[in-house]
């Protein structure tokens, strides 16, 4: 260059490229994202800036896939990368290998972003929450087969309500592929309609350790589960995305076990109370029937037949009395008649006439009361004090 050597643009650019790319390799730069663009190719393009300056930035698709959060305009970030020169345009830019948010960690940002996204989609809506069965017979548990969580849950369920069946679906709960395993387990157990309720969860750990439960694939599997899901991840203070989608969040796995089954003793007590109530109501009811029967037998209606009988017999007595009265009356009348007839009969007594000197003439046992009835021959003449025989000898003119 000292000899005023003339170089081509390409040569110059190549030399600049060499200097910049060697001199600014693997550096960390801090700034604010603007002009953020996710190209259809999958590459990220944005500008990193502060108050006084700006630099173009790019992140290639293969690295974008490893990002847990989605960068956005206005976000303060730290990027690690190399300066590269794009010769056709004479531009320099920072080729990002990694981007991480300033202040909050990338996981925190990712968590908030996914939470917002799923919230907007309605995955957390209370309307979609399924009621938990009151008395599940089979409980599916999606967790590590070796962790403290499964042991705690088995212990709590055994203590509270041992007449259930637990179906464990062993999964990896952290590390690569854990989220996919958990999601698949939820789908498998649903496909077979194996259980009445599902608990997914694990014991406490770092945000990194609990991360599988913050992944979208788990959230969607929980959302699509036909069987109600209880999410029990980490400690009380840890909230995971699966907690928001699940039908119920339990603060810990042990708490999930407490929530999923009732205390057997309380149920036994309840049933005993039922028996007591049934028996005492039955006894009361029978007593009350007895009382009703007793009351009825003393009642007017029940005694009506007796009463009627009494009434009838009184009526009969009454009739009888009236009949007697009637008869007496008739008797008196008859007596009078008889007396009068008697005196009249007495006046007709033939003996009285005989005493006065009349006689009765009989011929052939027939009374002869007319001249023409008499004929010659024997007759009987009756006086009042006896009879004599006589003979008719002829009729006078």
């Amino acid at each position, binding site marked *: 260059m000292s000899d005023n050597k003339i170089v081509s643009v390409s040569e110059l650019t190549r030399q600049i490229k060499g200097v910049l790319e060697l001199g600014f390799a693997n550096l960390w730069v801090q700034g604010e994202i603007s002009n953020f663009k996710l190209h259809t190719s999958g590459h990220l393009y944005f500008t990193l800036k502060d108050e006084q300056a700006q630099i173009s930035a790019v992140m290639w698709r293969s690295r974008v896939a490893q990002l847990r959060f989605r960068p956005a305009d206005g976000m303060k970030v730290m990027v690690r990368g190399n300066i590269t020169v794009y010769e056709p345009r004479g531009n320099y830019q920072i080729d990002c290998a990694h981007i991480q948010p300033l202040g909050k960690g990338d996981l925190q940002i990712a968590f908030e972003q996914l939470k917002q996204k799923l919230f907007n989609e309605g995955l957390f809506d209370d309307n979609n929450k399924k009621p938990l069965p009151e008395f599940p017979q089979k409980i599916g548990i999606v967790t590590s087969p070796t962790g403290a969580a499964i042991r705690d849950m088995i212990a709590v369920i055994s203590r509270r309500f041992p007449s259930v069946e637990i179906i464990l679906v062993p999964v990896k709960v952290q590390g690569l592929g854990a989220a996919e395993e958990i999601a698949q387990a939820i789908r498998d157990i649903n496909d077979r309609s194996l259980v009445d309720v599902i608990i997914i969860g694990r014991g406490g750990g770092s945000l990194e350790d609990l991360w599988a439960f913050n992944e979208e694939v788990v959230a969607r599997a929980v959302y699509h589960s036909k069987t109600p899901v209880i999410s029990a991840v980490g400690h009380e203070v840890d909230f995971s995305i699966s907690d928001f989608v699940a039908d119920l969040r339990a603060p810990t796995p042990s708490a999930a076990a407490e929530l999923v089954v009732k205390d057997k003793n309380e*149920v036994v007590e309840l*049933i005993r109370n039922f028996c007591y109530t049934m028996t005492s109501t039955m006894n009361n009811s029978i007593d009350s029937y007895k009382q009703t029967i007793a009351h009825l037998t003393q009642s007017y209606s029940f005694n009506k037949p007796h009463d009627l009988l009494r009434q009838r017999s009184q009526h009969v007595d009454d009739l009888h009395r009236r009949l007697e009265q009637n008869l007496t009356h008739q008797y008196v009348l008859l007596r009078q008649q008889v007396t009068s007839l008697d005196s009249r009969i007495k006046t007709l007594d033939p003996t009285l006439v005989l005493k006065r000197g009349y006689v009765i003439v009989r011929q052939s046992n027939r009374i002869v009361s007319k001249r023409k009835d008499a004929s010659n021959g024997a007759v009987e003449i009756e006086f009042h004090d006896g009879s004599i025989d006589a003979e008719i000898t002829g009729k006078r003119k």
Partner: protein
Amino acid sequence: MSKKETKHTFEQSLSKLEKIVQALEQGDVALEDSLKMYEEGIQLSKECLETLGKAEVKIKQLTKDLNGKLQLSDFEE
């Protein structure tokens, strides 16, 4: 699967029992019906208490065999 599977689940039995208790308490059931209901109620409560008497949780695990087919097996802690 146990051989002696009762017709109703525990939950159904308990809810039926509860209904019987309520009906009997309301007292507008004919005596003969209420006696039948009482008998049924006592039977249901026996069944429920029997279920509650089971002492140990059954634990199985759902895993995939070599062909990726799901299978249930006993779980050893």
